[in-house]
Structure formats: structure tokens, C-alpha cells
């Protein structure tokens, strides 16, 4: 594996960062160790668990499977960029208030996934919510309260 480092410019949460990282570095590596944005989690490093999920130009991406060098011009949104400093988005508030957060390690990924869902469908039904969350693993909650939080946000069960 090449240890050669490459320079690139990443736009993360609206700010430009000049990054010097190995060519093989994943976006998750660069976010966590290069930029100190540790909210995105490494649960499996295989793209299965969803704890590393970020948005690239508003679309869901597994940052553990995305090479930093491939991000290019796309704007990266991480959990730290979802709301202002110490602010909460509606999704975050709904998860907190519904008791949907237990150990919290999967939570950033669920927040990102739900943020993407609500951006394209403000009133998703239960099956839409469940389908949207099917790529994120939670080992604590049994998913019931996470889905309830999203349903609450969507304006009630339908």
C-alpha cells in the first residue's frame, strides 16, 4: 500500500480544509484523525453498520468506504454540521425526546440518514422510515423508539 500523501481540498460542513493524507485514506480517517471531527463513528469499517454515514452533496455515503481522494468538489456534511454548535435539528431533538438514544454509538449515522430522508420526504410513513433506516444497525434499542421518533417528526403514524 502506498504511503505517499496527497494534498486535496475538502469542503466539510461549509468550511474548506486543506488535507494532506495518504492516497488510500478513507474519508472517515480524514474526518476523524485529520480534521478532529470524531462524531462519525467507525463501527465495522466494512460499510455494514452505518455509524460512519455522512452526506455528500446531500446524498448518503459510507465514509468508511469512500476514499477521501474521491470526494472531489462534493460538499461533505457530518453530524457536527447538522445543526449549529450545541444546537439541535428537529431530527436530533426527536431522537433525544423519544428515548431513542441508548449507547449512542450508532446515533450519528441514524441522524444523518433521517436528515436525508426528511429532506426529500417531510412526511414519510412507517414503511418508508423503516426502509430508509435499513442500512443502519443499532444493537441497543430494537429500533422501535427510533422509528417512533421519526414518525412523531413526520406528523403521526399513518
Amino acid at each position, binding site marked *: *500500500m502506498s*504511503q505517499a500523501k496527497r494534498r486535496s481540498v475538502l469542503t466539510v460542513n461549509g468550511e474548506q480544509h486543506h488535507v494532506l493524507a*495518504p492516497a488510500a485514506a478513507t474519508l472517515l480517517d480524514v474526518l*476523524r*484523525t485529520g480534521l*478532529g*471531527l*470524531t*462524531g*462519525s*463513528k*467507525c*463501527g*465495522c*469499517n*466494512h460499510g*455494514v*453498520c452505518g*455509524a460512519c454515514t455522512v452526506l455528500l452533496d446531500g446524498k448518503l455515503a459510507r465514509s468508511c468506504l469512500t476514499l477521501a481522494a474521491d470526494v472531489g468538489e462534493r460538499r461533505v456534511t457530518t*453530524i*457536527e454540521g*447538522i*445543526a449549529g454548535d*450545541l*444546537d*439541535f435539528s428537529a431530527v*436530533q*431533538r426527536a*431522537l*433525544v*425526546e*423519544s*428515548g431513542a*438514544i*441508548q*449507547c*449512542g*454509538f*450508532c*446515533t*450519528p449515522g441514524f*441522524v444523518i440518514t433521517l436528515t436525508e430522508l426528511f429532506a426529500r420526504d417531510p412526511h414519510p410513513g*412507517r414503511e418508508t422510515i*423503516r*426502509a430508509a*433506516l*435499513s*442500512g*443502519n*444497525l*443499532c*444493537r*441497543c*434499542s*430494537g*429500533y*422501535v*423508539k*427510533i*422509528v417512533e421518533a421519526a414518525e412523531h417528526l413526520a406528523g403521526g403514524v399513518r
Partner: protein
Amino acid sequence: MSDPVRAIGSSPPRLEAGDKAIGRAQYVDDIQRPGMLYAALLTSPHAHARILGYRLDAARAIAGVKAIVTGADLSGSRSGGIIKDESMVARGKVRYVGEIVAAVAASDPQTASRAATAIELDYEPLDAVLTIDEALAPGAPVLHEESASYVKAIQGGGHGNVVFETTVAEGDVERAFAQCDVIVENTWQTQAQHNAYLEPGGCVADVDASGRITLYASCQSVHHVQQRVAEELGEPMARIRAIAMRVGGGFGGKHASNIHSIAAWLARAARRPVKLVLSRMQDFEIQRSRHPARIWMKTGARRDGMILARDVRITLDGGAYADESPPVLAFALLMSRGPYRIANVRARGQAVYTNKLRAGSFRGFGNPQASFAGESQIDELASRLGINPVELRLANAMRPNDTAFGGQPVASCVLRECIARVRDAQREAPPLAPRNGRRRGVGFAVMSHISGLMGTAATVQLRTDGSIALSTGCVDIGQGSDTAMVQICADALSVPIERVSYAPQDSDASPYNWKTAGSRSTYMTGRAVAVASLEMRDRMLAHAADMMECAVVDLELRPGGVVGLKGVPKTVGFREIAMRSLFHSGGPIVVTHGFVFDGTGFDPKRASIHQLAFANLGVYTFGAQCVEVDVDEGTGQVEVRRAWCAHDVGRAINPVSCEGQIQGGFVQGMGYALVEAMKWNAEGWLITATLADYKVPGVLDCPPEIHPIILEDPDPTHPVGAKGIGEPSLVGAAPAIANAICNATGARLRTLPMTPERVLNAMDSRS
């Protein structure tokens, strides 16, 4: 005056939920320290081999390598839990594929990995045993030839590959079977389940100029980590400090420390901070699993449905090291009677060493295995008797003031209510529409569990401004204990929870707590918090009586941190009391309450018990679960459509957290029932070491409706009546689902997980 809003019984959002929601909660891997090194591990490619030598020159020559440790560096006795048979890196022999043989600390993760793979070991491969039968076969290769020399806190076992063996018995089983009209007998097999917490294990070890080591750990007890690391490094505990970070789940898998010492050793050697965080694959390969089990069980009843006798043999596959095998076996035996009034029971068990990953603690602790067999057998017995399985359970269910298997008295028992509640809830729910090609079935299971064990403590202090500082050693691994402890304290002192601060767990500062395990935090540490808080209340009332020149009996706590004179508006605030104690008389108000579980132990006159790891267990909890499943006739796929889980929690401190424990535990039990399985190949390699190969239920695998039904029968030994709910919710899922599959199809499955293939085979082989 209207009743104030009580902190207990309300469900404020978790204290730390906000930080978790915005990505600011700090887990081990989020730590950066100046000059921090990264650790990498080299693991064994052999299931069983003698280590002949190490060649480290190539690794040492790599620039950036700062420290290396192998088994050759270790001396002194081995470490571990009840049987000290382990070492932080292998010494002399390796006993499973994936066992750590060397560790490296280097300036960056890539260099550390490269150096670890540059280390060479010479091995003499040995024959391996991978199953219970191979381990117990005459002339089988022995994993621990030097077992007799190990330090053991418990005797029993130690011959051949037997880790531990014991028997629990009450009554006269043989005589009772002779009086039975119906006897059922069968064998069940269960698999290795991985805890699969989302955060892999890890720690950061730092070292100061005096050489004192601080560990930031993902763990279930800072006091345990401190003790284990001190033991393995040969340091006094005063030289080791352990601090818990936010923990991304544990479920028992992080309850014993086996990797923290490596980071501590490397930090001490390199004189630099060292981070050791496992990859997901390493976590699968080197941490632990639930014990695979083989259970033979025979149960007999009279024609009228009275169960007279049960005979049980449990064999656990313990893997390469003892870890928690002795207590898991003992607990499985104690739970094998089920929560029933059966006068004659004999439960015999063995745990054996095999050349695989150690099996250890996992939510349920032997109870899921025993209950899968026991609760399946109750349905088979009901079928043979021609009695409804729910009625058979109700008729034989334990009642208040009965005794548990082993003779422990059980004061509080609402099992029959739990059964009736799930039965009625399922009956009254609007029926789901039938589906083409699917057969619908309903299944029940009941369970008992305990909450208790060992010692714990809590400290409360009155701050200058009248707010409260609470400190315990109870590590919140996601279940919500931080919030529950604060609620208990706030309730005792009639203050809002915002007036109570809660200290993170730090072995330098936190009062002792054994572990987050055994469904014990709310019961044990919660009890300590309640008693300490009530004692603080009494000390404040004594001050207030002096200040108001009245008797304590004339005083009352009023909401918001105020002591008032009964019937009179006159008050003094906690702040004034704090000021008086700090600057005038009495001294700072600091109260610590510590205790060790003090319930009645086993009854030797009633039960014959050999070699248990504990003299008493805890208070008993009870529950019942009901599931509806659809079985696909073509594929054998089982889908759990709805579940009802009724559990007695004594008193719900935070009902929403209780519900989360019930729903999450049920889904882990459902994963155990239907999909999760660690598998090893013929050479002993784990072939399910990723989350792609080891299936954890996703949202689409789970029923949208998991209805928690919380029963509250306050436990008399707890000041606020609470009992634990961490584990019981997992226990009933597998037998309830097996019973539902049988109800739907007539096929009885006795092997976990109940995969489509097994379901189809069982459907094909119906008589």
C-alpha cells in the same frame, strides 16, 4: 399543596443524549493525546500450538516502532477471573486462532500494523479440539496441562478439558418421575452469539512522569479494569487509574478486561500514550461470545398438569479460557428449573475447554440457553398432556414467598400477572390479516432472572449553593444508569434533576462498584444512591432543626431544595444548610453508603449444591413474553410480526428507559433465535468475523410492534422498590419464537439459530 412532580417514574431525556445526538459524546477512539502512539496486534494462526520462539529483529528495525511486548516478556502467575488461566498475550502456547501473541506500539497505525506482521513466531502445531465431544473424548489433546497449578477461586473441574462441573439438586428426582403420568425428554443445541456492541473494544493508556498509568477505557467497570491491569503489570493498584469513557454498548462483552493491560504495558515501556482500538474483525476474533450449549432435559407431570420432576444436564463450550464459564454454568443450572414450583429437580453441568474464542458473559448469562430448552419443553409437555400451554404455566408458576431453585426465598413474584397480561394483550390486539403462503403461530415463554451480586457504593455531597454532587462507580454502557441514579437521588431529596450533578467513573474518585452486570445497577447501585441520599436528607434536617429551633419530626422536605416547618410557611434552603455546615458547624455534608448484596443465600438443608461461585445471587425478577410469527411455507423464513413482553421491574425509575431495555433485549434475543451465529471452520478459524458475515438484526428484520408491559411490584429490600430489567427481556425470545413456529407448523426446532433451512427440515420431518 398538589403533589410535586416526582423524579422517579418520569422519563426525562437521558442526561447525555444531547451530546450523543450531536456527535460530541466522547468514546475511546475519539481521544487524541500529545505524542500518542498506536498499538497493533499479532494474533495466532493456529488453533493449538506450542510457541517455540520469537524473531523480533525485523519489527524492531522499522522506524517509528517504540515498544513491543510478547509472552516472553511476561512473568509471574496468570491472570483472569475465577480461574486464573489467561495472560494478556499468549505464553508458552496458543489455544485459539486469533489469540494475541504480540503487540507493538508505533508512531502511526500503519507502522504499527507493518511491525506487528513483521514479528515471526516459531510454532509447533498441536491437535486441536473444536467441539464439546472432541474435548471430552478419551485421549483428547489437553488445552491446559498445567491447570492444577492455576490460582482458582473455585474448585470443581480441572481434569482433562473440564473447566468446571457442578450439580444443584432438590428433592428426589427418580422417585418423582415414577409418579409422573407424562414424561418428555429431549436435547437442545445452542450456538455462539457475539455481543456485537456497535463500538469495538479499546482503550488509551497514558503515563505520567512518575510512571503512573491512566487508562481511558471502554469497559463495564473502572474498578475491575484497574484491578486487572495492576495484576497483569505487577503494579500496585495505586499506580493504575482507570476512567470510563462513553461506552458504545457492552452487553457483558466488555465486563472482563483482557486488552487494557496490553496498552498499559506498551505505554509504560514506550513512556508515551498508547491507543489500542480493536477493528471489528479483531473484536470478533479475540473478545468473547455467549456459550454454545448442549442441554438434555427431562420433565414429568401428573395427568392434572402438576409438574413433579425435572432432570437437566447442561454442557457448555467454554472456549480456550475459563473467563466466566464457572458462574455462567452455575447460573444456567439455577435457572434451569424455570420459574415453576417443581419440587424435585436435578441439574448437572460441565463447562469444557475447546480451541476457540473464550465464551463469557453475555446478557442473560446462561439463562437464555437454559430457558430455550426449559420453555420449549413446557410446550411439549402441555401438548402431551392436552393442556393449553399458558394454563400449564399459570398452574405451575411460582408465587410470592415461594423459594427459587437452590432455596433462596422469593418475596416478590408477579409471574402469574405477567403471563395473564401478555396473554390478554395478544388476545385483545386486532388480528393481523393472514398472508398467502405463510402460517401464523403464537408462542409464549416465561422467565425469571436476578438482580444483585457483590458490592457497590454511592457518595452524595452537598455543594455550597445547595446543589447535590452524586458519584457512583456504575458505568453507563447505554442502558441509562446515569439518568436513573440522578433520578433516584433527586427524588429522595425532592429537587429537580438539574440540581444533581453526576460524576463520570474514575477509579481515583468513584466509590467502588463491582460491575455493570447481572441486571444490578438500578437495584444495587440504585439502592446505595437511595440510602446515601436519604441519610443526607436526615443530616440536613438535623441542621434545619437547629436553625429553626424545632424538632426534626416537625420538619419536611419541600420540592426545590427547601426544608419547611410542617403547617407553617417558614423554611430554610439547602444553600443555607450547606453554608452552615461548611462555615459554622458540622463540617461538609458528605455521605457514602456501601454494601454487598445481603439477601438470604442458598439453603443447604433444602438443596444440595456443590461448588457455586456465589453464596447468594440477588432478588428475583419475573416476566412473560408472547410472540406472533409468520412462517413462510416455501422458504422456511420466520418473521416475528408482533411481540408483547411483560416484566416486573419492581418500580420503574425511568419508564421510557425500561421500555428501551425491554425492546432492545427482545431483539437481541430474536437475533439469537433466528440469525446470529459465530462459525468456525475445521482449522478453527472464525469465518463470521465481520458484520457482513455475522448477521445482526436490522430494522426490517424486527417487528414494528414490540409492546413492553411494565409491572411494578416494589421490592421490599430496595428503598424505592426497584429491580433490574437489563437481561430478562432477552431470555424469553428464543423459546417463545420456537413455540410459535411449532404452533404455526407443528415443527419443533431444538437447535439455534432457527434458520430457514432448519425450519424447512423440521417441517419436512414432522411425523
